[in-house]
């Protein structure tokens, strides 16, 4: 069926490569999830829905962005059709056709007895397929990192990890990703009453933001996407930042690292990790690989979650945000950005353009730790970030920020005051923990009690001392 034409005579409807073939979704809402579309209109039901909240991985598919080459595992349940416009998508059906030999990943899964009920299996296959495309032989740590977004309730994972080792052993990147040119992303899509706008420039974005007040601004969508997948709500007008050229940039200068607002956490990770290994470690535990491939650093700040992982880290690092709006650009320190629960200083017509993280000063030490019930892919009960500058065994400067301790990510100013100019000793840090009660009044919820949050936050100060002092094992994952 020929796709309908819009008023200017252009084709409308999301266009992308689906398992190597050009595909047009003429009548589907642009904010429909890729999963609903695949299982519905596209009739591809190998991809499963296990949770519709991006936490189980049964819906894992692999995407190559327009103009990109890197196959990235994503959760189809949170990714929208609009975001797929101009991309290439591979589903489990794309790995081997009927009667064809299974893909090496599939073969390894079979020979390792890695499926039991089989419901999570296509998701695991796709996550491993993306891992295999990276080439090389990943160690177990890398395998766990690649699988952190996939839950299996039957096998206990041992055979799946074995299959990963087998499938990725000596695997060259074998160009299995369809490398046909993807269709150009469209700046505007309409379906019924729904309008999807994907500007290519910052000017375009600001113009649209002004002319469509009340439009939904969508970056990665791993949080906002829940309203499409679970609440079944769809915005009348959605403005995607994904193709805004300026926002896709990262730059490193002598004094700072700049991360564009549409840069994903996966994309930002290498540079962040190089400058601040502890930040890298937090980013590797952020959501899952599927989430990080889509979620943006800016989105994690803009949603102003009190339990977002990046805000406390970046606050301790004295990061600032560059905002752009009708009145021009302005820069505000991150700690001034969060106004109240889920509220920020961002004006109605403003957008975040980039995050600026100043380079570490001499002798500064940065540490950050996340405490959660599960190591991988969990939301923190408490996350603490610490930047210390020591001079001759004295604490010359100290910035401390916590998530999970208040309605917004916040600095622990009283605690900082109790520490600055004090002697760097375990006793000092232990004593300063008492000041946290003046900084924070945390709450009880499903992740932890208020008492535990205060206790563990104080104990992270002790961990900070022991870690910086060079004690060998201060985290269970170091054993």
């Amino acid at each position, binding site marked *: 069926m020929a796709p309908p034409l819009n008023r200017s005579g252009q084709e409308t409807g999301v266009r992308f490569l689906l398992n190597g073939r050009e595909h047009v979704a003429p009548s589907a809402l642009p904010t429909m999830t890729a999963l609903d579309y695949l*299982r519905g209109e596209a009739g591809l*039901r*190998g991809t*499963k829905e*296990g*949770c*519709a*909240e991006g*936490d*189980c991985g*049964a819906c894992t598919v692999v995407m190559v962005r327009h103009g990109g080459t890197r196959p990235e595992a994503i959760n189809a349940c949170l990714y929208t059709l609009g975001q797929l416009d101009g991309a290439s998508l591979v589903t489990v*059906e794309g790995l081997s056709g009927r009667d064809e030999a*299974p893909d090496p*990943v*599939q073969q390894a899964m*079979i020979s390792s*007895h890695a*499926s*039991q*009920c*089989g*419901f*999570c*299996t*296509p998701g695991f296959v796709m996550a491993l397929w993306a891992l295999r495309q990276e080439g090389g032989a990943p160690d177990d740590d890398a395998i*766990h990192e690649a*699988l*952190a977004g996939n*839950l*299996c*309730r*039957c*096998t*206990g*994972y*041992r*055979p*799946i*990890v074995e299959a990963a080792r087998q499938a990725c052993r000596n695997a060259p990147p074998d160009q299995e990703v369809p490398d046909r040119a993807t269709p150009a992303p469209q700046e505007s899509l309409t379906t019924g009453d729904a309008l999807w706008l994907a500007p290519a420039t910052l000017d375009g974005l600001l113009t649209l933001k002004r002319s469509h007040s009340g439009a939904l601004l969508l970056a990665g969508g791993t949080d906002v996407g829940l309203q499409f997948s*679970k609440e*079944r709500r769809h915005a009348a007008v959605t403005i995607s930042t994904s193709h805004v050229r300026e926002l896709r940039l990262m730059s490193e200068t002598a004094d700072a690292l700049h991360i564009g607002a549409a840069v994903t956490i996966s994309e930002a990770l290498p540079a962040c990790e190089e400058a601040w290994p502890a930040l890298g470690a937090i980013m590797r535990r952020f959501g899952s690989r599927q989430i990080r491939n889509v979620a943006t650093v800016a989105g994690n700040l803009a949603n102003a979650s009190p339990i977002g992982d990046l805000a406390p880290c970046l606050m301790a690092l004295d990061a600032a945000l560059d905002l752009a709006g009708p009145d021009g650009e302005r820069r505000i320190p991150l700690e001034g950005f969060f106004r109240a629960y889920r509220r920020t200083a961002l004006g109605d017509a403003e957008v975040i353009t980039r995050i600026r993280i100043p380079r570490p000063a001499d002798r500064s030490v940065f540490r950050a730790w996340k405490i*959660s*019930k*599960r*190591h991988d*892919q*969990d*939301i923190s*009960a408490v996350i603490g970030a610490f930047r210390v500058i020591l001079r001759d065994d004295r604490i010359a400067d100290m910035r401390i920020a916590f998530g999970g301790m208040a309605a917004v990510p916040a600095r622990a100013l009283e605690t900082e005051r109790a520490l600055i100019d004090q002697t760097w000793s375990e006793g000092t840090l232990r004593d300063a923990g008492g000041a946290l009660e003046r900084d924070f009044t945390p709450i009880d*919820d*499903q992740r932890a009690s208020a008492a*535990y949050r205060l*206790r*563990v936050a104080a*104990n992270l100060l002790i*961990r900070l001392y022991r870690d910086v002092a060079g*004690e060998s094992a*201060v*985290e*269970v994952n170091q054993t």
Partner: protein
Amino acid sequence: MNASDAAVFARAAHDSALEHVTGRARFIDDMPELPGTLEVVLVTSPHAHADIVGIDLALARASPGVHAVLTAADIPGTNDIGPITDSEPAIACDVAEYAGAPVAAVAATTFDQAFTAAGLVKVTWSQRPALLTIDEALGHEAYTSPPQTMKRGDSGAAIAGARHRISGEVRCGGQDHFYLESHIALAVPRDNGDLDVLSSTQHPTEVQHAVAAVLGIPFSSVTVEVRRMGGGFGGKESQASIIAAIAALVAAKTGLPAKLRLRRDADMIVTGKRHDGLFRYTAGFDSRGRIEGVDIMIALKAGNVADLSSSVLTRAMCHVDNCYFLPNITVRGYPCRTNTVSNTAFRGFGGPQGMLAIETVVEHVARHLGLDVDDVRDANWYGTEDRNTTPYGQQVSHNLIGTIVTRLRSAADWEGTRRDIERFNAANRTLKKGIAMMPAKFGISFNVPRLNQAGALVHVYTDGSVHLNHGGTEMGQGLFIKVAQVVASVFGIALGDVKVSATRTDKVPNTVATAASSGSDLNGMAAFNAATTIRNRMADVAARILGATVDAIEFRHGRVYAGNESLSFARLAELSWDERVSLSATGYYATPGITWDADTMTGHPAHYYTFGAAIAVVVIDTLTGESRVLKTDILQDCGASLNPAIDIGQIEGGFVQGQGWLTSEELVWNADGHLLTHGPSTYKIPGSRDVAPDFNVHILPDMPNPVPTIYRSKAVGEPPLLLAISVWLAIRDAVARLAGYRHLPRLDAPATPEAILMAVDDILARDSCR
């Protein structure tokens, strides 16, 4: 049966392995919809306990795409899907007794239409007081079935007369099954008011009964089919009835196919879980730690209706002995009625809860006496000649626990590992390691004797291909391939020549749940009997053709032999048909010797016992309470394993599932009785990194079942889950070491970082007051 048969004992892959990895394995939601199929969404109670004063359906009925909005008033039959006792409504009528109870079902052309309309159903509520916890229910003596007592000897006198006494309390949380495929049913109307129901259920017959009851039609009008489930773990034993009955009600009322798939949050809120437990104990013992008398109270959170809770409680009480001879014992069990979702079967079925209690008692005895926990175990093992009768009167025969513990300790380098841990702990002040061994004995069979039966249906076609059907369901556990191996072995044909097929109530009727680890024991034997019937008929034909006696006929390698003469199995099938010999047979099996007196709580409820043990090494962070499992060694008795690859998978998967129950999986309810952890973002089952990097799993070799089970194999589904208690015990060990083993840690399950840190702080505080 002989051990040289080719197909059994082989490490055959799961029958659907290729379909799984290619995404071609069809689950119910993957089936192409018939035209007109309706999507159903439930409207559920927002209150833990409230009267339904009124329901206004007008707006919902007028909403676009809506075909029907149904309530309990629309049920033509009986609004009751209780598996054991009556009055368990599929749809709440007059009163809702838990937050999440279905009160209406909205059916529309699309899911989104039904979802929107469900929000338009206006219910007027009048709230009533709610009991939300075990403690509240105990205080009100609110039970879903009568409390149970198991008694042997005079525990009171034995405790009073013992040299040492302890008493204490421990708790464990519940557990969501978190099968990856949530509950689903698809009901399709047929002629004359009949219905076909595709249901993700472990118990097609019970779904058949529930659908028939709700619609007021005979069982024969309802056919239930299940090809595969995306995981069950007990969660689809009784709970599937609610879902299927509502889908069937919509189909019957509208005349259209109706699909009800619970999205993840609804699944976790609406359907039952593992029972949380509260355990109180008093024990008297001698100076070596030998227990002379023990009183144990087991209180389980049953939820709002009985469901299977009385049986779960019985199994908990029957496993509170674990591997120990308890000469004088009183166990009191309370199925606590709470205004929470009705808890249900979950792998282990109460067994894990009972064993967690006695292991706490054993540890407490050790701490009290300053002895090693394992020395106390040694003082209390069941004997072989004497001290070998359980509190319920069954003799523990063929006890393998001694053999298993000895071999496991050696394989895991128990002594060396303990020395390494001591060295590590001496050198580290933040992180501390712990180690523990968990022995386990598990009784195989349903406690209720009548449930121990199974049927099978086998056809041989004239091309030699074989169609296999039986009453067991496939939920990932590998039952279908194991039973297919049995049938292939009987006929001496290749495994690939046996076609496994969907479980259907019109092929094999009156089945029991695929549960209690009994799937392959029961259905394997029934299929063996069916196949053997056909083989014997074919052997008669072969004997005539080959001019030999029937005794000389052998079926092997796809051929049928009499000495050097042979013909292919396919040819023999064709010739048998020519001779008008039936190539189809049913098979039936009833487990012999099972008895149970529910009043005295005595009998012989286990056909046999399985044994296993695990050693876990963990590390905890004394500053944050984070923990990690470093090493796991398991030795499990599987008899003569029908399929070691499948059985290893069951052991590994069961262990990790149990580890989750005892560590990261925390169900949190608020003060209004709402479940706060109803999705994977808040409810944390183990991920791949949580599994011990050093994970060694072995099946006890060369130990066929002395009891004549199918090819002398043993059941394997549930026992490995219990072994995960080793992880919890190892965490407690790490905490206890902080105070030189002078105190019993106050650590309930699950051992979340918060629970561990509180236990660490508590034990250090107690020790400093000493």
